[in-house]
């Protein structure tokens, strides 16, 4: 019995010390829920975009969120935070979405998941509406802020006025908004590449068991056949 107690103590001591001194655990901030964001990220205007969500571990999982902090007037930053299972699950569909925003004028804060860049759309300090031939009013950033469309992964997308109106409604109702046609989020046509290209994503094994075993009896195939001189030599 004493030996078992001692062994258990040893295991707990090892796990405790490893956890306390683990560089990953030390460096990575823990985010319990979206209520933590205002205290964690300072400055305005500020937009927090969820770039990736992934898990690590086989039996005991650790949940991570990769966030992009887009500041108004300085370079964006990337940060990886640890989180709990419920917050991870709640945000699984929100990759590419803005999870937190702080407005510059009145320091208003919002934690409703909205398309990235929602903070700036409609703000005349950052851009303006232009009529297009289709009759729609579309948002254009001012020249100095034109990099925002790249920072927010918009590509060729240009929000129209209806998009802006919807943002305001969803923000007021505190309900997530994924774009007029669901362009944003993990499954959104504009931002789904973020999830698909994630370096942390564990790819599902599509090959069969026998195909996998073939690896052990296959010979390495060279794409560049040796030159004639090399063969002769």
């Amino acid at each position, binding site marked *: 019995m004493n030996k078992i107690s001692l062994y258990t103590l*040893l295991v707990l001591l090892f796990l405790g010390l*490893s956890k306390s001194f683990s560089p990953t655990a030390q460096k990575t901030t823990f985010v319990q829920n979206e209520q933590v964001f205002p205290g964690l990220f300072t400055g305005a205007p500020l937009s927090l975009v969820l770039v990736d969500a992934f898990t690590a571990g086989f039996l005991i999982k650790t949940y991570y969120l990769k966030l992009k902090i887009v500041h108004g007037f300085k370079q964006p930053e990337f940060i990886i935070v640890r989180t709990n299972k419920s917050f991870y699950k709640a945000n699984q569909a929100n990759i590419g979405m803005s999870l937190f925003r702080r407005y510059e004028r009145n320091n208003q804060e919002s934690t409703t998941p909205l398309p990235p860049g929602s903070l700036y759309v409609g703000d005349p300090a950052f851009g303006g509406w232009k009529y297009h031939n289709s009759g729609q009013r579309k948002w254009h950033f001012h020249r100095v802020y034109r990099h925002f469309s790249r920072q927010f992964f918009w590509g060729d997308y240009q929000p129209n006025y209806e998009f802006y109106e919807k943002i305001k409604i969803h923000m007021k109702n505190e309900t997530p908004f994924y774009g007029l046609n669901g362009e944003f989020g993990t499954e959104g046509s504009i931002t789904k590449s973020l999830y698909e290209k994630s370096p*942390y994503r564990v790819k599902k094994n599509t090959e069969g068991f026998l195909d996998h075993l073939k690896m052990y009896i296959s010979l390495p195939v060279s794409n560049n056949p040796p030159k004639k001189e090399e063969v002769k030599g």
Partner: protein
Amino acid sequence: MNELFDKLILRVVFALFICLTLLAYRMVHNLIYPSNRTNLLQKFYPSKNSAESLHFFARLVGIGIVFSEFSFNLDQGFLYAVMDFFIRAVAGFIVYLVSLYTVESIVLYNFDYHDEIVKRKSTAFALIGLVHALGVSFILKIILSTAGTSLIVLLFLWLFALVLIGFATKTFPLMSRLSFNRLLIQRSNALAVSYFGFFIGWSFIIASALNVPLTQIKWYAIQVVLKILLSLIILPIFIKGLKLIFALNDDLNNLVKEEDQQDTTNIELGYGVYEGATFFTACFLTIVITGKINFSNFYPSF
């Protein structure tokens, strides 16, 4: 051709230096054990006292092991390379001698070299001396390669390793059922073989734990301690596993009854081999587990 000649000279310098070290060891040997009749000018007859030969040549092999991972840095020229080598090698030699002296002071504090080796020709004592030389030199080899050129780091690592060795040697009564002092007085080879497996096993574990790249002393110490703790968790699994899988039967009590003995002071060599081999095998398998295992990018670090 020039560089080949340079390398040949360096190798010859290395060989001469090791010979010089061996000579230095002979002098130091007489200094450490002044009661020993042999002196620097006397001839040594190995066949007359096998225990003394074993003890002495173990020390020499130890010196070889300490120097087995030396490197010459020729970036700043040939002379600097020789000078750097000389400084590091002398430091290594001194550290080796002081380590042996310290370990033997901890383990063999009840015994005197002259009594055990010269007078009683105790092979058990010689075997223990042999394993101390081998184990300490394995650990020092790792320390010297980790410390690089810094003598301060070498000093820190050496003291750190000595503490670990000291703690490790004190666990022998926990790991073995043989009474160290009583059996060594009786020149029991069973004890010597058991201790041989025990000490060399621990040396492998400590050497493996110390074999971590040193960037910051604090993090290095934490990593080493964690590796030792991990080894302490894994080691009992292998000891129990070996005993279960191969149905190894700890028959010490039966042996004592069969031979009608009151205590466990006169033990068959086989029991010592069983204990030593089990512990050493378990230690060796442990360092396979605690060593660097590549988990690919399954556990990301940032």
